[in-house]
């Protein structure tokens, strides 16, 4: 890409279930450009699960041959109620 060309905005969406962890990269038209998938392994605890989420996000971006700087926001969907203001999952089905 030409250095003068502004990097287009991209978004990453993560779907975190107890059985499936998927990260998808989207362009501003909400076209899915590529995705990565890992098993979430909830039995390993939250810290390791978040490490896996981060890895999955980076893998998805890499899969699309994008620089991570093109990602302007990440949204993570979780299987349960959330406190969106505090950024907390209050209860996650299948996560003990």
């Amino acid at each position: 890409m030409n250095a003068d060309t502004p990097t287009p905005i991209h978004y990453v969406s993560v779907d975190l279930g107890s059985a499936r962890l998927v990260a998808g990269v989207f362009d501003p038209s909400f076209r899915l450009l590529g995705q990565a998938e890992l098993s979430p392994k909830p039995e390993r605890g939250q810290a390791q699960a978040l490490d896996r989420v981060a890895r999955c996000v980076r893998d998805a971006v890499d899969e699309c041959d994008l620089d991570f700087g093109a990602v302007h926001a990440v949204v993570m969907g979780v299987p349960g109620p959330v406190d969106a203001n505090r950024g907390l999952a209050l209860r996650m089905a299948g996560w003990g």
Partner: protein
Amino acid sequence: MRRELEQRLGVPVTLENDCNLAALAIYTLELDPKPRSLAAVCLDRCSAVGWIVQGRFAPVTAGELKVPAALQPDPKNPARHPAKQWRKALQAGDAGAKEAMLGIAVEAGALVTQIIDRLHPDVLALSGATVAELKDWLVPGIRQHLAGSGPECGAHAASLFVSNLGKDAALVGGAVLAAATVRQGSSGWRP
């Protein structure tokens, strides 16, 4: 959780319920005109329903929702999505699967009726991998269940919509929410 993920990634992160995200994708990309209220039912997700009222996520007050157990993925074997197994058996003409699916459709119909009864949505959308795989068998059973419910349920007033976003509905909804967050500084979807 959000803060820890932001530290790992170095970009703003928003957390949202997965079925709300599916509802958001359907509301934004598939429905025009926009309904005043939308309940998106995800038959293969434990949280089961996403709920949008007047362009905002709203808390679900539908009581305990019983999603048909036969449609839930096995956490120990996530690659084997039950809906795919059901579809293969049904397409192969398996009589046992056909009979079982009638019962599952009744369970799904009861769930949909419960949600309509409690939330009174203008539109009830069916979404997710299960609906994508099994709509030919499930949706007629659900419609039949709704048609048989009493007028006090309000099922006749709700419009049933079958989403074409399939298993990616929640993922697409996350992208829609991310775009809103970047555009407005906050998602704007929470009251």
